[in-house]
């Protein structure tokens, strides 16, 4: 195959040997080298491509914690407070009032059939206004409306939906079903134990679309717009036959990212899970990296289901829930270590992080693996001592910088209070403790966009505009490292991606401005032109 040399305004390689270059030579989807045109011409016959002559190239961004469901949620109607771009690049304006929400739902209800599904609603930005079923009835009374809130812990329904769920009746007495003055449910369901069954009765199945070809393609388009060339799909349940579907979808000529699905362990015994991963790992392709495992240790902080160390939640709420027993965690760890498989563990609360760290320490005594890279996902409340110990055990962390922006104020006021809210998602401490670190969006919980995530870690601003945890800020250079090589390292893919160096995949984020030259506060606004993945060019404009 021929050699292409791309000229750029500037190339930030993230490689210490040659941090900045003007040209990069690509052959067979891989990088021959980055340098000057004169240097690269020695490779022989080539095409000089000037497409990026006025652009800035970086290594393609790597999203270490997202879900491909970020594509399929757009089959529903976005109702959030912030402007957000859909996979087609259309900007959906953030909704600021109940009337605006009703109007958008009305429009959605005018076409199609079945439940009208909304997502991303976040009344905390609207002075915690309660959207009632009567509000939603103004949009439609013929079709059920089911809305999941951005927090994931509340669902809103119109009267039709409540009726279909069998809930539109007097005399309900359940803490998760608030009632209106009339004694009937007011329209909110607060807690998964009622949301899931009610949603199901209305015909809303959030998992139906997940992993569908259409959903994966939509996710790929979102990635291109964000400069992402490799993304995790962090908690997938898939069976052997689904592997072939995933390989086929990701193998399409125009599929723009390398997908890294992590198989969730919740429905398989540890032995079966590890055997399955061992079997599928060799089927990995350039665009689908298989064989990794995801586990949940606890729930979420704002849902009060995360496991916290003393002094627990500041409102006195009982400690959260374990989603796995310590013995089961240990068994998965040991078996995975034996087979050199990678495990990432969801730990929101600091007690959950502690359990994962302790359990890995125990497992490593039996199965020593210095380069295990088991990664604490979210790890939002970890203490300095936990970071130090995680580092010594060979673990990594993936901190939830976006969450700090979107819900930092909530944590400051309600869940844990100022002292612990300020040390949440402690990027500075993590790096100073020597634990390899990346940062993430958890899309669709927050929009995928590594430059935004980097901005959040650099500024530590919350939605209300306060700097929360000055001491945990990191530099722009550190943040850019986190969204490229940092994330690649946690996936054990840093030999393949994450920097622009000879031998690596030709994966680039193509930017209109230089993120190292703009003010740190403007990092999130650096326009993304598109990506190059495995030498294939994807312009956001036409994706």
């Amino acid at each position, binding site marked *: 195959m021929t050699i292409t040399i791309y000229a750029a305004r500037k190339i930030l390689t993230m490689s210490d040997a040659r941090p900045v270059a003007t040209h990069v030579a690509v052959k067979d989807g891989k990088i021959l080298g980055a340098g000057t045109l004169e240097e690269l011409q020695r490779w022989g016959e080539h095409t000089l491509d000037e497409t990026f002559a006025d652009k800035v190239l970086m290594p393609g961004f790597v999203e270490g914690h997202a879900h491909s469901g970020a594509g399929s949620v757009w089959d529903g109607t976005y109702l959030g407070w912030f402007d957000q771009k859909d996979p087609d690049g259309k900007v959906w304006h953030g909704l600021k009032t109940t009337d605006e929400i009703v109007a958008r739902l009305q429009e959605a209800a005018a076409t199609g059939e079945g439940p009208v599904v909304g997502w991303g609603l976040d009344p905390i930005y609207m002075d915690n206004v309660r959207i009632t079923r009567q509000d939603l009835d103004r949009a439609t009374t013929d079709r059920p409306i089911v809305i999941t809130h951005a927090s*994931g812990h509340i669902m809103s329904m119109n009267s039709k939906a409540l009726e279909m*769920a*069998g*809930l539109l009746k007097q005399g*309900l007495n*359940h803490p998760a079903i608030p009632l209106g003055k009339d004694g009937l449910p007011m329209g909110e369901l607060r807690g*998964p*134990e*009622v949301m*899931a*069954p*009610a*949603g*199901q*009765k209305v015909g809303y*199945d*959030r*998992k139906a679309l997940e992993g569908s070809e259409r959903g994966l393609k939509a996710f790929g388009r979102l990635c291109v717009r964000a400069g992402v060339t490799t993304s995790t799909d962090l908690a997938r*349940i898939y069976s052997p036959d689904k592997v072939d579907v995933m390989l086929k979808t990701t193998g399409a000529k125009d599929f723009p990212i390398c997908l890294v699905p992590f198989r969730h*362990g*919740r*429905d*398989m*015994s*540890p032995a*079966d*899970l590890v055997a399955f991963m061992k079997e599928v790992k060799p089927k990995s392709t350039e665009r689908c990296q298989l064989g990794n495992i995801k586990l*949940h240790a606890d*729930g*979420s902080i704002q*849902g009060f*289901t995360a*496991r916290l160390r003393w002094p627990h939640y500041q409102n006195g709420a*009982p*400690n959260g*829930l*374990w*989603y*796995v*027993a*310590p*013995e*089961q965690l240990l068994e998965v760890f040991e078996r995975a270590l034996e087979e050199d498989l990678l495990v990432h563990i969801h730990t929101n609360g600091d*007690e959950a992080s502690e*359990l994962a760290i302790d359990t890995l320490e125990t497992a490593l005594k039996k199965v020593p693996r210095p380069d295990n890279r088991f990664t604490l996902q979210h790890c939002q409340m970890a203490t300095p001592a936990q970071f130090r110990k995680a580092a010594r055990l060979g673990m990594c962390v993936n901190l939830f910088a976006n969450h700090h922006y979107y819900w930092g104020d909530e944590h400051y006021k309600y869940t844990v209070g100022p002292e612990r809210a300020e040390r949440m998602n402690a990027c500075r401490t993590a790096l100073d403790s020597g634990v390899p670190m990346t940062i993430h969006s958890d899309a669709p919980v927050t929009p995928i966009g590594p430059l935004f995530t980097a901005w959040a870690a650099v500024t530590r601003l919350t939605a209300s505009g306060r700097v929360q945890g000055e001491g945990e800020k990191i530099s722009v250079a550190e943040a850019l490292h986190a969204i490229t090589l940092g994330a690649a390292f946690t996936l054990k893919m840093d030999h393949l991606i994450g920097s622009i160096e000879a031998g690596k995949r030709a994966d680039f984020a193509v930017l209109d401005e230089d993120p190292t030259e703009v003010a740190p506060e403007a990092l999130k606004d650096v326009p993304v032109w598109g990506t190059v993945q495995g030498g294939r060019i994807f312009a956001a404009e036409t994706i």
Partner: protein
Amino acid sequence: MTPALPVTVIGGYLGAGKTTLVNHLLRTSGLRLAVLVNEFGALPIDSDLIEAEGDALVSIAGGCVCCEYGDDLVGAVMQVMALEPKPDHILLESSGVAIPGSILASLLFVDGLRGDGVVVVADAAEIMNTAGNRYLADTIERQLADADILVLNKADLVDEAALDSVRNWLGAQVPGTRILPAVQGQVPHDALLGSVPLPRRGHRISGHAAGLFSSVVLHPSGPVDPVALATSLAEGGHGLVRAKGYVANEAGGQTLIQVVGARWTVEPAEPGHQTGVVCIGLKSGFDPGRLDGLGLVEAV
């Protein structure tokens, strides 16, 4: 109207013997039991014991069915409810870290289902250790607190003094909760499941005389306030583990009363049932004579 299908949640920490208990109930109850298991993959349920070609055994993904990942629970329950012929009772074996009361609560608004009770299995040799584990203490506390009936399993693995001490400890943890010591989950099924054999067609209530349990049938002297009677049976300090039966109500109809530990339900019934309430209790804690005030007590 078809009567609601009762569901019993069987909770307790990993290794307590929940599955052993389920297998025991499958073997001995004589009921059509549907079993839902919420655990990480493994299904050590003895599937030979399941009728209906295994349709009545449904596995729900592990973790906690009442958490964010709980979507599977209702689907699984619906699947079981659609079985023909219908099961008599659903057993839901929860995962070792689940809070069983939350699971029961999440089932309460599936139409046609009735929460019968929460049975928590505790390992006599381990429960105090587990409750002292710094990661698990509050989880165990909440599991125990949710129990309508506590099965103190593996009682044979500890000596008498140790059994006494764990019973005392449990008594202090959850005062008032019925505690049933057991070996390999062998608890009389009618002490645990709502389908207490009703006093009909001369049916004799089987085999408690030789065991730890005693049973009587209570015959109220006339129409009663079913709620008052159920409350008294559940909370009156009689030491009952379980009670079930039809009574004549003050409105001239019949009501079905069910008691599991301190939990009770009453529901209107079609007329024409033989009246009388079967009451089952541990011999050591149940004094049938104390029911005298509620009606005629017939020994069985």
